[in-house]
């Protein structure tokens, strides 16, 4: 594996994995955000964007995140621009946390992530309900927030291991 990762080209491809994952999660028909399993769904894009904006912001450009948001809006059929705004707000929160953190700790990141998704999802639902008159099942949304929060811990560990594998640094 060390031999493979040392190859410049493959390393570059592997470093694009967050971007590829983000676009696949947005464009693919199967979505964890609507898993079809009762009372289980989570927003993978939120976890991915928050983690990489916090730990390795150069892996996910703001421009690409903005485009991914536009794509997400089109695919799930909500007014264009809303997901982009939410994704970018998550980037903003993550950048703020990065600026104020001296000693990174996963628990602190995790708690801050909870606050972030609560604020972002509140703005998201207020926009959808008040501006665009969407009808929303609040229970589904609540379970979505809870699972997104819980799974951040696991995913940050997985992403940390992946980054360690390709760059030798552990970010979690």
């Amino acid at each position, binding site marked *: 594996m060390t031999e493979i990762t040392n190859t410049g080209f493959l390393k570059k491809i592997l470093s694009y994995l967050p971007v590829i994952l983000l*676009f*696949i999660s947005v*464009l*693919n*028909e*199967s*979505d964890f*955000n*609507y898993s*079809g399993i009762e009372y289980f*769904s989570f927003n993978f894009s939120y976890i991915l964007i928050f983690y990489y904006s916090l730990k390795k*912001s*150069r892996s996910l*450009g*703001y*421009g690409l995140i*903005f485009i991914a*948001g*536009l*794509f997400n809006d*089109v*695919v*799930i*059929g*909500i*007014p*264009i*621009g*809303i997901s*982009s*705004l939410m994704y*970018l*707000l998550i*980037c*903003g*929160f993550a*950048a*703020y946390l*990065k*600026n*104020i953190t001296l000693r990174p700790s996963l628990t602190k990141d995790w708690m801050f992530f909870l606050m972030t998704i609560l604020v972002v999802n509140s703005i998201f639902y207020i*926009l*959808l309900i008040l*501006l665009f008159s*969407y*009808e*929303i*099942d609040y229970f*589904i*949304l609540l379970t*979505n927030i809870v699972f997104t929060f819980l799974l951040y811990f696991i995913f940050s560990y997985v992403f940390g291991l992946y980054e360690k594998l390709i760059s030798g640094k552990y970010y979690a």
Partner: protein
Amino acid sequence: MEPSRDDFVIAIRSAFLKKGTQQRFSLIGLIFFSIIIIVLGNFNFKAVNYLKISIKEIVYRSSFIISVPENYLKKTISVTKEHFELYDNYENLKLEFDTLKQRKVLDEYNILENKRLQKIVDNFYIESNEIFAKILIDKQSPFLKSVVVNKGSKDNVKMGMTVLDGKYLIGKIVEVNYLSARVLLLSDLNSKIPVSIEPGGLQSILSGTGDSHGIIQYQKKEHVIEDNSIVYTSGAGGLFKSGIPVGKIETIDPSLIGNKKVNFFSDFTQLRFVKIVSYKVEK
């Protein structure tokens, strides 16, 4: 207190205003741009509409391509499952076929009589436009239960057209692009259609639940709806032609009002091809 407030302002300013390393765009710039898009999307600007349609065409096709491996896997699993259930299915279908053959003879008389009576009251609709379309995307979101089809204004698809899966109603067209269109499914929370429940001819509203079934709304206590009653479109409001089969009634909780669940005849998760139709009164 003063220094900590300064720190907060500096951290916020640095997070939102400063362009990060290797970032080509400023975060605050993109946030404002998103807000402008959301606001402009609310108004009917021609330029914005063209931009929206172009993005949609590109995204729908990209999504279709990206979902190819996943759809192939799903199809393989479904085919394998069908092979295992083949014999049981054959036995059931044979039984059903015999029953239907007998019923068909009786129905033919009823259909002819019904046509004759509807013509008398000027309510006999025929399909004036029929378009077959392939499902491009059926990504279900908690906000919108819809599918995207590969026919658009180029193929004469218009807003409000009825969408059928075989003979069963599945929804209507709510968005038309040049090469694609979006179908709002009956299961969507915002979908409300006038229906007639047979036997009894009870008029009601079928509402989507955001789940795989619908519910009967505005049901009075004195109206008894039996299980396995069939739900058809009523044609009220001119939204759909009357008599299109929708689903079957099932009682969820007998102690509740509004407890009638409608199991749709069509399985919305298995749609591959649909028929988009419009109707006109036969002269």
